[in-house]
């Protein structure tokens, strides 16, 4: 059996609600186990070394989007990050920027996402029709449904926002997650909003025209969403609104 390696994890610990607390890196060393993810490593640290360590997780499978954090500079999901991907087994963890810091690695992405959802009115709008939930939904072309589902795979982990220089510089920027959401509803035939309606939501420098095409969203999205392509699509659509 191959010799187990030591893993060194350095975590930025800080509790903004505690006046005595100051940001500091705390280092933990533990033994690597086969297939060890960062999520497993963090749980081991919390169970065996530091019960005070705060971080978020729910599903452990890259579905809930709760465990986003910055690992050696790159925002990523802890549950999908293998310790073995780091040859020197040294990992520096900091909380995702752009979001309200709760404590240590725990940030309030929910608050940010909720605000974004309300801002882009992230629901199907059809003022003409009363929806009867007792009836079967209208049929949709499979290709359209697939295209919508492709964008609906977003788990709101916040990694696109934490990767985005524009969002960090300008906290009101709607982010790739918001623009992806607008593209999703713009493609949905059940949504009767016009391009001008969507323009009213994101047609400014805090929205689509604030995006500087840094494309860190595209390059770091753990779900590989086609963000570059969809943001460009929305830009072309909205710039032509008269």
């Amino acid at each position, binding site marked *: 059996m191959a010799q187990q390696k030591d893993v060194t994890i350095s975590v930025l610990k800080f509790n903004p609600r505690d006046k005595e607390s100051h940001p500091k890196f705390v280092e933990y060393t533990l033994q690597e186990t086969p297939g060890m993810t960062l999520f497993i490593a963090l749980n081991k640290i919390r169970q065996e070394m530091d019960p005070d360590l705060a971080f978020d997780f729910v599903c452990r499978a890259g579905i809930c989007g709760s465990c986003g954090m910055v690992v050696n500079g790159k925002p990523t999901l802890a549950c999908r990050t293998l310790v073995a991907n780091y040859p020197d087994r040294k990992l520096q963890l900091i909380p995702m920027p752009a979001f309200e810091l709760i404590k240590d690695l725990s940030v309030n992405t929910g608050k940010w996402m909720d605000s974004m959802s309300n801002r882009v009115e992230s629901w199907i709008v059809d003022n003409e029709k009363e929806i009867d939930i007792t009836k079967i939904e209208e049929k949709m072309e499979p290709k359209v449904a697939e295209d919508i589902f492709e964008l609906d795979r977003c788990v709101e982990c916040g990694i696109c926002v934490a990767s985005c220089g524009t969002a960090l510089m300008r906290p009101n920027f709607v982010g790739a997650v918001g623009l992806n959401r607008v593209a999703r509803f713009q493609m949905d035939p059940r949504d009767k909003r016009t391009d001008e309606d969507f323009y009213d939501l994101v047609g400014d420098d805090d929205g689509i025209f604030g995006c500087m095409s840094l494309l860190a969203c595209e*390059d770091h999205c753990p779900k590989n969403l086609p963000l570059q392509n969809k943001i460009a699509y929305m830009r072309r659509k909205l710039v032509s609104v008269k």
Partner: protein
Amino acid sequence: MSELTEGYLGITSSGRKSKVPAKLDYVQSITGGFLALFMWGHMLLVSSILVSNDFMYSVTKTLEGNFIINGGSPLLVSTFAFIIFSIFIVHAAMGLRKMPANFKQYQVLRAHAKSLRHDDTNLWLIQAFTGFVMLFLGSVHLYIMMTNSSDIGPYSSADRVWSEWMWPLYILLLLAVEFHGTIGLYRLSVKWGWFDGKNPRSTRIRLKRLKWILTVFFLSLGIASLAAYIKIGIEHADKVGEKYIPTSLTKGIL
């Protein structure tokens, strides 16, 4: 009325969001794209000195319109320089909207770029920095071209580069222009998704490779051309102000 409501409320008097941000974004792209492509042409014209002094002279005279005006008129070049300067200023104004506006924004962007080590984010920082540099260097060059357009030619340009101490400015301007322009064209392509095709990700990789090829090509051409002007300028330093006479004319005189 509309300006007032848009200014205070961000919506037009009809209750719709202002369309100005869309126009500003579009104008930034159009002016940037035009200037980047213009610089390719400009570089090819400037590099005519690498062929021969006579060839550079004939290019200059052609641009002065000697095919319709006897002897050519530098006024045409001044007019063109004025148009380019105007587009340059509009583009700068549009581009400034994206720059960090205060120390806090600069601080967060710098920390982020250092931490993230992301290629396109770093390319943007280069673009922002070179854009800022060009605000000053580009303005100096364009103003001189606008007001002294008769001093373009194998000797006049070389004298300006060497004897009039423009070479340090031109070296920096060359670096700034070539990086800013090619990065800008790459960004324009991905920003508007013009060449996305069926696989935008592989297209982006190819676009970036092309971007670097173009950067190296135009930078090499620019450095070679500038070196040629410096060489001519050094050789011509004791006769500053003397205009170039093409070989065909000197042969006629002899």
